[in-house]
């Protein structure tokens, strides 16, 4: 009995400790960046001697910051829309339907998830340069969008598939029975019911695209997004502005994640009262 209690104490220490440890671990670099973003010095060493907003100013004044910000926003929004749309159709086809070549379809839409991003980017870059030489164009933001959609769609698909998996078919039957055509069934019943999944997929897609480095790096051609802007900036040594940039780039991520949480909670509240029978 005492042994069991001792084990229990130990288990609690390990369990709570591991969660706390992992959270600290995850936030070390993030907090470090936020801290250094207010450093006055050009060289980011600790302890920080003076605090200032100097590097925020430098960041806003940087020539290529604004285009990079805009590119990131365009890239992330467009990729999100496509990846989410493909994810919805793909997830329904994956889970709810049976059709010829389904295995092939599932493999094809899942495979990019298992590819190292850089390699995915590289093979696509090779293809784009071939296409480019045939059709006389060169890679740019649009090819990065295609790359992001290829990379992110499987993520979106899997997230939505989880939601579709719990879907009750008879709800659609009921809607059809009530006189709804296919589109009405989809719009009025299917979509609202898988919406939590679609919403999280969209948030996830946006953030994956927003923070993506490897694929953008390979495919964006001359267009620069925030992550590639950071990488090239660090490489040539003008690093003091990047903690400031990091701090700013956490803001949209924070907003989206917070929004997702609020949304999820509202949905949960709606279904708060458990059904009293069944």
């Amino acid at each position: 009995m005492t042994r069991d209690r001792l084990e229990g104490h130990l288990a609690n220490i390990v369990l709570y400790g591991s969660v706390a440890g992992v959270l600290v671990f995850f936030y070390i670099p993030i907090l470090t960046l936020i801290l250094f973003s207010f450093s006055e010095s050009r060289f980011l060493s600790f302890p920080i001697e003076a605090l200032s907003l100097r590097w925020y100013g430098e960041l806003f004044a940087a020539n290529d910051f604004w285009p990079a910000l805009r590119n990131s926003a365009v890239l992330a929004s467009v990729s999100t829309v496509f990846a989410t749309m493909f994810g919805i159709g793909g997830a329904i086809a994956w889970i709810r339907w049976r059709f010829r070549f389904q295995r092939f379809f599932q493999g094809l839409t899942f495979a990019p998830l298992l590819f190292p991003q850089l390699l995915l980017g590289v093979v696509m870059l090779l293809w784009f340069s071939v296409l480019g030489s045939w059709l006389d164009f060169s890679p740019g933001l649009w090819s990065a969008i295609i790359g992001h959609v290829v990379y992110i769609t499987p993520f979106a698909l899997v997230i939505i598939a989880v939601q579709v998996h719990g879907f009750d078919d008879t709800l659609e039957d009921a809607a059809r029975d009530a006189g709804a055509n296919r589109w009405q069934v989809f719009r009025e019943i299917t979509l609202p019911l898988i919406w939590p999944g679609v919403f999280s997929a969209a948030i996830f897609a946006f953030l994956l695209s927003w923070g993506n480095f490897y694929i953008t790096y390979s495919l964006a051609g001359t267009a620069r997004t925030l992550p590639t802007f950071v990488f090239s900036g660090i490489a040539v040594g003008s690093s003091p502005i990047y903690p400031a940039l990091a701090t700013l780039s956490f803001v949209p991520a924070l907003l989206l994640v917070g929004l997702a949480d609020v949304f999820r909670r509202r949905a949960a509240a709606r279904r708060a009262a458990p059904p009293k029978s069944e």
Partner: protein
Amino acid sequence: MADQRKSWRDRGLMLATLPVSALMLFFFLVPLGLTAALSFQSTKYYRVVWSWDTGTWIDVFTHGHYWSIMLQTITMALACVALCIIISLPVAYALVNRMRSVENHVKVLIVFAFLTDAVLKTFGWVLFLDRTGVMNGMLETIGFGPAATDILFNPGATLLGMVYNLLPYTIFTIYLSLARIDRDLVLAAYDAGASRLRTFWEVTLPLSRPGVIAGGVLVFVLSLGVFLESKVMGGGTSPMAAELIRQTFETRVNWPLGAALTLVVIAIGVLTLGGAGALFLHLNSRKGTA
């Protein structure tokens, strides 16, 4: 889950599958084929010569250093997988069994950290671990000598960065498989007189295996593709496969060689997946006959 059989004449099916299939075929499968084709070409003065020979592959197979880098990459990937699983198990277990009330907050915190820009976070680690970084600064203020730690610029630092960036994958896959375990099974084990540890060992751990395997495979495959961590945190002196590929494409501008090396890494990943799949089936079939 009803099986709705759909014919390819069904408009819904076409709408749901054809655009995404076309995208994946044209921008994923075709490029992969092209990469294979490119690896059979040669290069001269930074230009690809359309020569259709196996020179590049001979080059790949006769140069030991490509393989030592591959081996190094696989070793690092395996170490990363092991660390990720070991760290994730208690975290996922705690989330499922102990922290119901704050579970969602913790998940949100992890997701947020996971989804922010990897380049910046890696850079943040450098600022933290650097000789004049936050960690040494803090150690110094509590009485350790200057530059008490020297973690950056070695394979350990690379590994730290990899674990940092890939840990969420195992946490979430293991979390999902643990959350699916029927609580009654655990209670049944207690009821049979098993201690907590024994219950964890005999019931929970075996049942979490799908999550462990899925997360492990995902982390392994993704580890094959990292280069930021080895470049920025590892000090670049022990390059990983992806860094080798990047150098080959960018610094040496040798596309056939880069394509061949890319295929080697992809092959390693695919073989691993196949192996993991076979292992999974084997374990399941054993369970079936037992």
